[in-house]
């Protein structure tokens, strides 16, 4: 006896919609069982984990704040992954974007260098600098790939560590707050270098809008533009793309620039909107988590938005579970893992038919 996976051809629309729902239900069952084995009420856990964060204004804001960088980076990565370019280094591009954009905030701290211009230009300059820096940093693996044929998987990943150590060095050294007792943090940004809040007294900052805009623009590009078609074609059928006159190399550079810019923009939005200063580390791993988000969203921008929101929900709900139910953090992480496994498994079942073959050839 053996088990075969047969491609289904075009999966039905119904199945595509039902699969994630079923995956979620299975994950809930497994999670509930574990919670029950730990001696807590699964119903209460479900409530704390998934319902309560969605019923309060502040936690909805927190979900948006947490989802925004994930969605923004993942949307950029969708360009790469669709074109078969494997940018694993979004974390590094995020850090460099945040650092270079934040540097402008440091330079203009306390009204320095503003002169007659005033301070209106500081935020736009920070955002643009962040995006450009992220794109520039992604150009290193891009050029190594198209000029020397070096795998961008390795180079982009290695450059993450370079970026981390560089930021660490800058914050411990040249950028250190002179009044900070030699602790490795910079000054906190002036309000002119801080992304405005969308809700008075809340945490929802304008960076969240950047993510929404990026998702909308990317949706249009993929659906309506020649460039979107080119990305898909080069990824799916490189030979056909060559006949069509598309240059694989030019496209690799372009998609790396786009994803680098998106990650850099996410970085500066996080630094300016959420953290409010530069620290030795500015990312809790957003650049890596975004890779998961990109695939969970099936590389489609609206799907990515949903995936980012769901993942953000599990973080907020997980903290709620730690507080209200005294469930350990490991439980939250395990549940996130179960959820991802179920979604991926459901993905397989929508695209393939499982057939149990009995007898047959040995």
């Amino acid at each position, binding site marked *: 006896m053996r088990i075969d996976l047969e491609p289904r051809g075009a999966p039905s629309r119904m199945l595509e919609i039902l699969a994630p729902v079923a995956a979620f239900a299975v994950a809930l069952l497994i999670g509930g069982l574990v919670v029950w084995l730990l001696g807590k*009420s699964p*119903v*209460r856990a479900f409530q704390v984990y998934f319902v309560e964060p969605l019923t309060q204004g*502040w936690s909805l804001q*927190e979900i948006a*704040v*947490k989802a925004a960088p994930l969605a923004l980076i993942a949307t950029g990565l969708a360009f790469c992954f669709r074109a078969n370019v494997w940018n694993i280094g979004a974390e590094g591009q995020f850090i460099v974007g945040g650092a270079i954009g934040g540097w402008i905030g440091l330079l203009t701290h306390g009204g320095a260098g503003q002169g007659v211009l005033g301070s209106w230009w500081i935020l736009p300059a920070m955002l643009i600098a962040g995006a450009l820096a992220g794109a520039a940093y992604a150009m290193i693996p891009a050029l190594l790939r198209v000029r020397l044929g070096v795998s961008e998987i390795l180079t982009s990943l290695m450059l993450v560590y370079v970026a981390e150590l560089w930021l*660490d060095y800058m914050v*411990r*050294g040249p950028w250190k707050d002179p009044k*900070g*007792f*030699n*602790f*490795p*943090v910079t000054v*906190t940004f002036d309000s002119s270098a801080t992304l405005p809040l969308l809700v008075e*007294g809340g*945490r929802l900052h304008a960076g969240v809008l950047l993510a929404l805009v990026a998702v909308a623009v990317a949706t249009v590009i993929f659906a309506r533009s020649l460039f979107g078609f080119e990305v898909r074609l080069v990824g799916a059928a490189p030979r056909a793309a060559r006949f069509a006159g598309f240059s694989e190399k030019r496209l690799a550079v372009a998609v790396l620039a786009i994803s680098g810019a998106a990650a850099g923009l996410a970085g500066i939005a996080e630094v300016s909107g*959420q*953290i*409010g*200063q530069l*620290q030795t*580390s*500015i*990312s*809790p*791993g957003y650049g890596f988590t975004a890779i998961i988000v990109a695939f969970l969203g099936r590389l489609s921008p609206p799907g990515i938005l949903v995936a980012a929101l769901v993942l953000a929900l599990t973080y*907020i709900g997980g*903290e*709620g579970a*730690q*507080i*209200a139910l*005294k469930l*350990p*953090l490991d439980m939250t992480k395990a549940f996130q893992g179960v959820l991802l496994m179920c979604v991926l498994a459901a993905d397989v079942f929508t695209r393939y038919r499982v057939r149990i073959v009995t007898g047959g050839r040995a």
Partner: protein
Amino acid sequence: MRKLVMAAAALAASLALGATAIAQEKLKVGFIYVGPVGDFGWSYQHDQGRLALEKKFGAKIETSYLENVPENDSERSIEQLARSGHKLIFTTSFGFMEPTLKVAKKFPDVKFEHATGFKQAPNVATYAAKFHEGRYIIGQIAGKMTKTNTVGYIVSFPIPEVIAGINAFMLGAQSVNPNLKVKIVWVNTWFDPGKEADAAKALLAQGADILVQHTDSAAAMQEAEKAGKHAFGQASDMIKFGPKAQYTSIVDDWSAYYIGRVQAALDGTWKSGDVWGGLAQDMVHMAAYTNLPDDVKKMAEETQAAIKSGKLNPFKGPILKQDGTEVVKAGENLADKDILSMNWYVKGVDDKIPQ
């Protein structure tokens, strides 16, 4: 099936009852940890403090914690504790400073305690420990016990607490053995058993016969035990990782401070402030002196008593910087603020502070 439904109903009822009862009386105390509670180091020791609270106050309080909270994404976690009814919140790592202040502004009726920071607010107190007091003692022990006159020193990050620790160690060592040399390895992490073990092996290979660490895992202690050498533990008592190797450990003991602050919150006498406690407050605690000859043990105990009583200040003058310039004259002590912002080595340390 009916049994199940009834059980569920009973459970729901008891939950609801419990919730209203709690809301009336209990003080909810929250903790934010930067690492996992199982790290046997920094976060573990803070959690020991939390457990001491539960033991002491029993039903009068309820405690919760969030562990492994990344410093750059901690504001939400702190706010989540404040929103869920916690009225006293301990944020136990330096990187939680700005987020703590931000949340504190939004919740003026919640009291915050931030470990190792330097910014206070009416509802944000800070607290830290004079770990350098313990380091002076282990410096003296190392000065007496080393046969190779070489001590390996594994350090995390060049922040003032760590630099002051190296200096206090060196001053302690020099007070009994002017020939002692330290070899310093920066591992750029607070907790990475693999890296710490590698550093320990390298230092032992370079002739160090005693290891000192300002990182949190027990890796160096285990390496010393394996090699038949000696070591000092950090953060928690590491005697079970090095029963033959450990001379003593510098233990962070937050219990007394936490109990005092919770008591103050219960009594309504809590006030913001800045506490920097050492051996005298038992915030810094020396594990039992083991594997030492009687005379060295006696010396260590005497030094500990002298620091505790205030007779001896580890940073008493004269103190010379590496280049020989005098920082403190004989008969004077280095000011607290200079210790808290220390970024220079004393004479005799053969290393450059990473910049």
